[in-house]
């Protein structure tokens, strides 16, 4: 009977079976390194500290805390305000990069990433030097304090700009020129073309960018901790519960509450998917912007202003790494770069970080892109694709502290057969990869969705196996996006703190952790110096990407021209 039933089921083609198998592997990967650890930790929200069953008692205790509503509201409005500032700004910037003929685009593309290239302590220090109570520009705040919502929003705008600009520049980078020609032939005004062709084409990117920025702000505790004063937000509540009180149960409760944005993001993503049509069909003619001064000059001006602000903030921090002691001894010195004076590990933390970040980038870009591909191009029936898609959107909404703690409890558990990973560099690599998964996934999906599924259909009708189509068509076309993902992972792994702080061992302390330690010890200039070294490494990686990207572009993207 069983075999009859199996035989009568419609048989999957080899391609489809392969894609389905890939999807199962993807699901397995995300289950082991994301869902299970996180689930094990979040289950603690329903336990007492002794491990007994608490039901909804913890949740009830948290909801009745009077400060909760204040913190939740603060989180929501600072995140929404940040997104409302960042997304239009990033859109204009990305538009200038992709749809204008302004000069020095590659340079702006590199500068755009600056905030991601440095540990978050660097802008925080710069903001204190600029707008703190002894700050050089404190007059600009007109008597308001930088410690509080102003500081949070300013720092978050700086911090989130690259993520939004990255997503939007991928979304805007491919467009079908035929649509624009048709619109022009119909004598549509420029404003109308922008409204009816450009914006709808980038809609998916806009939604993603908004959701990403909102979620990043809600879950980040580093910025509110340093510059938020006592302005309460949800992310610092997690910090209080986990690090201040060692109350993992309540920490899990807040972590659970913070997952709400992920659920909303997922719903929005599904909504945007239903709205979309593949932008780039197989017959598309790539759009090549023609020079037009009235558009290019204002965009250039805007990009210059944004770039100047980004470089200015980083510049202040670089200067801060060269002075002896802010603000009382501003004489210049290189002593702050002699790290063995502050931390016995010295420079070795930098090499460790480089190794770790390189592994995250190599392994991560392969995994992220492959999973995105099998997810987007495989059959959509059953619950599996939806589950994988949801899992991929979760990491963004998980505060690093929660993910780090989840890894400790899951991988250090005596019954876990993967326990041998614990305490090695591998656990840092996997943790960072999962921590930064969502933005990479969105970038990959955006790139893949812009390709017409016809490529696969044609491949199939010519009896070319799907992996050949993937390897010879999809990957080359998407190579710029893959490179972007690899470098994004590299720089994020170089600068990450919140999750790995629970996972590093005596021989695997990353430089980004050393920065935090030096700052805690009151060695602000040395901390800035280490942050600048990290910035140097990540900048080199970014420049490397530009150089490789130029070559890759010439080889693989010629068809776009």
């Amino acid at each position, binding site marked *: 009977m069983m075999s009859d039933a199996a035989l009568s089921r419609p048989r999957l083609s080899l391609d489809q079976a392969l894609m389905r198998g890939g999807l199962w592997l993807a699901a397995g990967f995300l289950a082991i390194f994301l869902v299970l650890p996180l689930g094990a930790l979040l289950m603690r929200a329903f336990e007492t500290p002794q491990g007994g069953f608490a039901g909804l008692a913890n949740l009830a205790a948290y909801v009745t805390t*009077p*400060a909760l509503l*204040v*913190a939740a509201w603060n989180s929501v409005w600072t995140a929404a305000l940040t997104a409302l500032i960042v997304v239009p700004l990033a859109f204009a910037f990305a538009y200038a990069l992709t749809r204008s003929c302004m000069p020095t685009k590659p340079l702006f593309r590199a500068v755009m990433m600056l905030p991601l290239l440095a540990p978050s302590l660097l802008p925080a220090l710069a903001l*204190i030097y600029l707008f*703190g*109570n*002894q700050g050089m520009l404190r007059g600009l705040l007109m*008597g*308001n*304090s930088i*410690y*509080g919502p102003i500081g949070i929003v300013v720092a978050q705008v700086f911090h989130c700009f690259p993520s939004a600009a990255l997503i939007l520049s991928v979304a805007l980078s491919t467009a079908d020129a035929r649509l624009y020609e048709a619109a022009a032939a119909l004598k549509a005004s420029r404003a109308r073309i922008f409204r009816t062709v450009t914006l709808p084409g980038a809609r998916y990117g806009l939604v993603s960018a908004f959701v990403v920025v909102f979620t990043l702000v809600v879950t980040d505790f580093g910025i509110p*901790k*340093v510059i938020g*004063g*006592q*302005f*309460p937000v949800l992310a*610092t509540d997690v*910090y*209080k519960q986990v*690090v*201040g*009180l*060692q109350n*993992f149960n309540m920490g899990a409760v807040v972590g659970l509450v913070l997952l709400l944005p992920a659920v909303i993001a997922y719903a929005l993503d599904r909504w945007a998917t239903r709205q979309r049509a593949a932008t780039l069909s197989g017959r598309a003619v790539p759009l090549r912007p023609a020079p037009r001064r009235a558009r290019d000059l204002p965009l250039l001006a805007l990009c210059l202003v944004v770039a100047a602000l980004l470089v200015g903030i980083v510049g202040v921090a670089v200067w801060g790494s060269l002075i*002896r*002691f*802010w*603000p*009382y*001894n501003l004489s210049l010195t290189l002593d702050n770069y002699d790290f063995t004076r502050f931390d*016995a590990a010295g420079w070795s933390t930098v090499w460790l970080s480089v190794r770790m970040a390189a*592994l995250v980038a*190599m*392994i991560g870009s392969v995994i992220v892109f492959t999973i995105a591909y099998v997810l987007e191009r495989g059959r959509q029936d059953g619950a599996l694709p939806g589950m994988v898609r949801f899992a991929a959107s979760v990491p963004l909404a998980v505060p690093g502290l929660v993910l780090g*703690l989840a890894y*400790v*409890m899951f991988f*250090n*558990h*005596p019954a876990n057969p993967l326990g041998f990973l*614990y305490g*090695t*560099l*591998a656990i840092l*690599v996997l943790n960072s990869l999962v921590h930064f998964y969502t933005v990479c996934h969105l970038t990959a999906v955006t790139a893949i969705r812009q390709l017409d599924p016809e490529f696969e259909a044609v491949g199939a009708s010519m009896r070319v196996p799907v992996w050949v189509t993937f390897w010879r068509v999809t990957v080359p076309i998407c190579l710029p996006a893959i490179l972007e993902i690899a470098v994004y992972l590299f720089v994020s792994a170089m600068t990450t703190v919140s999750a790995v*702080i*629970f996972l590093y*061992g*005596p*021989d695997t302390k990353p430089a980004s952790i050393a920065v935090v*330690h*030096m*700052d*805690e*010890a*009151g060695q*602000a200039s040395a901390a800035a110096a280490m942050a600048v070294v990290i910035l140097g490494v990540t900048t080199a990686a970014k420049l490397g990407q530009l150089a490789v990207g130029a070559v890759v572009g010439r080889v693989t993207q010629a068809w776009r021209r």
Partner: protein
Amino acid sequence: MRCLALLALALASLLPAAAEAQQRTRLMVYTALENEQLQPFKQAAEAALRDIEIAWVRDSTGVITARLIAERANPRADVVWGLSVFSILQMEGLEMLEPYTPVGADALRPSMRSDRNPMTWTGMDAFVSAICFNTAVAQQRNLPRPSTWEDLLNPAFRGQIAMPNPNSSGTGFLTLAGWISRRGEAGAWDFMTRLHDNIQQYTHSGSSPCNNAARGEFGVGISLDMRAVTLRNQGAPIEIIVPTDGVGFDLEATAIMRGTRNLAAARRLADFAVSRPAMEVYGRYYALLALPGVEPTVRGYPAAFAERLVDADFRAIAQERDRLLRDWAARFDGKSAPRN
């Protein structure tokens, strides 16, 4: 295929290098000591125990405690050496400590060692909550030099003081505990309510009030005594004041983790941690040592320093911790907008 091979190679490089032939026992030691103290402590211990190697994992008190508790099911640390006694007592309550009375531990001051038999922890030294006072800012804004906690209630300090939020930072809780031990609970709440008017910020980090007072961000930061040394060496115009009206103190303590795979070596390190040579190393950084008769060599402390310490019942305070912190949060946390 080539990609796969590369990937496999990359993965292989992640696994720990095959343990190089070594006879020394490697002890995993978790600590919250200051970074600059790690090397001298390690050297002293390894000189005394030639077949033991110390591998530090250091982080702030909150992070390292959270990590130890999270690893409870399968402890990675062999020994905790240099962690707040409040954290140690929390772990004692969770049955995470291996009972052992180190050789010579009976000579320690009774208030600075475990009262159990066999002991669960031994003290190293005491550190106290103190006032970091920025003399340059004080001159600018006409702030008087405080010498007691009571002095901080002076309206001249309005919006000038930063202290760590006790819910986020062990330093904050230590300060709170000191006030309660000295003034009784009602008196302490009354004091804090009045102090609240002068607070500019309750920070999440225990080190931030002093670090930022040194930068002139605040006139006064409430923090720990040993914070200021590093800052002064860099040229910060900062004075460390140990108030004369009773300060809360905390101990740096040593304990063996239950479940250690190197029990014999861990015990020998615990023995060393209470020995005279170890105390002499602690004395380079701390003014009050657990072993009577060892003269600290750290400078800049008042002669009658030990008398300013409040009498503290660590266990009683540790048991009240949750309730005290809830009360504190209900009174002061998240209620006030940031002031200028």
